[in-house]
């Protein structure tokens, strides 16, 4: 508390959730180490001390100042954006400390030596991510926006060369072309599945609006699919798709086959039909029957009632469903690699096969970024929708 401020009120509702996380983020690097160094790729890294150079100390001090700010912000009686800002700042300071610390800690000239964040830094990162999410949830906002900001900030630090000494970044630089292709593949898989699900869900939801029996059948079937485990569904699709492709060679030429992206895209889309269909139906019903009847009575055609009434009023609900489906699509697309569909999942599973944690992270981090970007983007879109406020 600065001098001259009024006496602090009762602690804010964020305090019980945020204080332990902030303390954990502060203590973990102290107890479990900031960085770990290995002489080469094959040996396990061992914790190493932070070099006490000027830039490292500056980043270190910034990290602790941000944690203190997080604690103070959590004390405020009304939730606001300050705790999220402090947590994001702490994440960036943490990344900078680790990046600068490894750069100063690696023996010069030892090209085979590898440096990575130690357990303490990882625990601190996890605690701060949880703190960000908790602070967002307490404020009633989506955690995707601050988390995406943190991820973009780390990306900026990387682009500035601050993280170049980390083995993760070196691995990424070595596989840049593969990663770009995997990212593009992942985006294509998710987008294709989302599009396919929309093509199925939109007309079915619109037709179900005034047909209770069709609605029951549609939502029942869409819910039924959710019970099938995703890998099992992809597997189930392989045989019929393979049979189709051999019966109609034209389909195979178009890229459809038992193995590859086709079963993954169809399988993912099948899961998305339920959230999309249900969201579109409830969105269309935000405008009450009375209201639609009043609109008809004024002389609005069914199409005008849809565009001027049902869609603007239901936009918030429908965008919420789209957001859920987009995030789900990006997550499920990870499993496409198991049926030969490619995407970032291939990087993750390759990493698991080689017990290479850096490689796993190189697959997981872009998936996380994509998912956060989709979530934050659609959340921002919903905020400007007329029915959203």
């Amino acid at each position, binding site marked *: 508390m600065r001098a001259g401020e009024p006496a602090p009120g009762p602690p804010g509702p964020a305090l019980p959730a945020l204080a332990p996380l902030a303390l954990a983020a502060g203590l973990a690097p102290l107890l479990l180490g900031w960085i770990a160094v290995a002489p080469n790729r094959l040996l396990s890294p061992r914790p190493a001390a932070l070099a006490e150079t000027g830039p490292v100390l500056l980043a270190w001090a910034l990290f602790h100042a941000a944690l203190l700010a997080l604690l103070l912000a959590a004390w405020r009686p009304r939730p606001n954006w300050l705790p999220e800002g402090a947590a994001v700042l702490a994440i960036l300071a943490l990344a900078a400390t680790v990046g600068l610390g490894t750069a100063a800690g690696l023996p010069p000239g030892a090209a085979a030596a590898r440096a990575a964040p130690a357990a303490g830094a990882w625990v601190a990162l996890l605690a701060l991510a949880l703190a960000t999410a908790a602070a967002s949830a307490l404020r009633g906002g989506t955690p995707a926006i601050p988390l995406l900001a943190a991820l973009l900030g780390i990306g900026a630090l990387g682009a500035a060369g601050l993280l170049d000494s980390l083995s993760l970044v070196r691995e990424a630089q070595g596989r840049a072309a593969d990663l770009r292709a995997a990212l593009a593949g992942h985006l294509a898989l998710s987008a294709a599945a989302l599009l396919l699900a929309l093509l199925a869900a939109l007309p079915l939801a619109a037709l179900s609006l005034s047909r209770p029996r069709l609605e029951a059948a549609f939502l029942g079937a869409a819910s039924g699919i959710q019970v099938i485990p995703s890998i099992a569904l992809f597997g189930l699709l392989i045989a019929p798709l393979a049979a189709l492709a051999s019966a109609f060679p034209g389909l195979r030429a178009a890229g459809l086959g038992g193995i590859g992206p086709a079963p993954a895209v169809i399988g993912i889309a099948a899961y998305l039909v339920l959230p999309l269909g249900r969201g579109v139906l409830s969105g269309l019903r935000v405008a009450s029957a*009375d209201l639609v*009847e*009043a*609109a*008809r*009575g*004024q*002389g609005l055609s069914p199409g005008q009632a849809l565009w001027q*009434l049902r869609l603007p009023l239901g936009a918030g609900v429908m965008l919420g469903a789209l957001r859920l489906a987009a995030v789900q699509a990006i997550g499920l697309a990870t499993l496409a690699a198991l049926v030969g569909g490619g995407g970032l999942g291939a990087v993750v599973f390759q990493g698991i096969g080689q017990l290479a944690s850096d490689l796993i992270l190189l697959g997981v981090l872009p998936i996380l970024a994509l998912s956060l970007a989709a979530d934050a983007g659609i959340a921002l879109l919903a905020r400007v929708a007329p029915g959203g406020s």
Partner: protein
Amino acid sequence: MIAFEGVFHRFGAVQALEDVTFAVPTGTLCVVLGESGSGKSTLLRTVNRLVEPAAGRVLLGGKDVAGADPQALRRGIGYVIQSVGLFPHRSVAGNIATVPRLLGWDRARTEARTDALLEMVGLDPATFRDRRPATLSGGQAQRVGLARALAADPPVLLMDEPFSALDPGTRRGLQAALRRIHAGTGKTILLVTHDLEEALALAGRIAVMAQGRLAAEGTPAAVLGPGAPEPLRRMIRPGTLALHRLAALPAAGAAAEGPAPGAPALPPGATLADALLLMLDRGADRLSFAGNPGRHLGMAAILRAAAP
């Protein structure tokens, strides 16, 4: 003129309308009175084709509505419902402009019309133009609903229990506004209600519906005559039919020439029921008219009017 000719309709096993035939003369405010389930709303909705009759014809200005394009038909008929049905994402002005916008009016004409209508329904345009429906009271919302129905100056207004959800004071205020608008514009108005008081306060003619059939139709005093149908008698306290009949007749209509000095004075617009109650209250058998000293009203005239 609105004319119903042998109109039938059924919802599943329920006969909603059975051979309804009557006409509403141009410029008349006709109240369709009935209990819930009597088919009165269904009848109203056949006029703007929200309900299509199974048999029979509904004529509007001599033309069968079944031959009109439904959307064009509805844009030419004002429609007010109990739940008001204002679009929550549009301002008051945006709501009133619904039909003018559908008709493609230009902006200046629409804005001028919106402000004039707000004045007409008793809302200050500067205060209410940009408000959202959620910020209005029930009475204010229904005033906006009435303005919306009048927006394109339709010759016919359909009103389905428009004031039933309002508290008594607010309801009387809106009834007064409607009477004023009807007197000022000469619209043909078909208004559905289950409330006899409301019917008496507004109606030029009353159509009584019961179980899908037309039980009676005519001027309020005629409908409430000694031969009043059973469904109508059920709506009033037993034994008060004559008093209700008097409530449907203006006192001025039974006045006689000649002053009545010293007699209690009736306010303008009073009914014969008001006159009788004033006589009972003051122990007088003659009344004068406030603002018209040359005429008076005697007990005998009330007796004659009560037993036609």
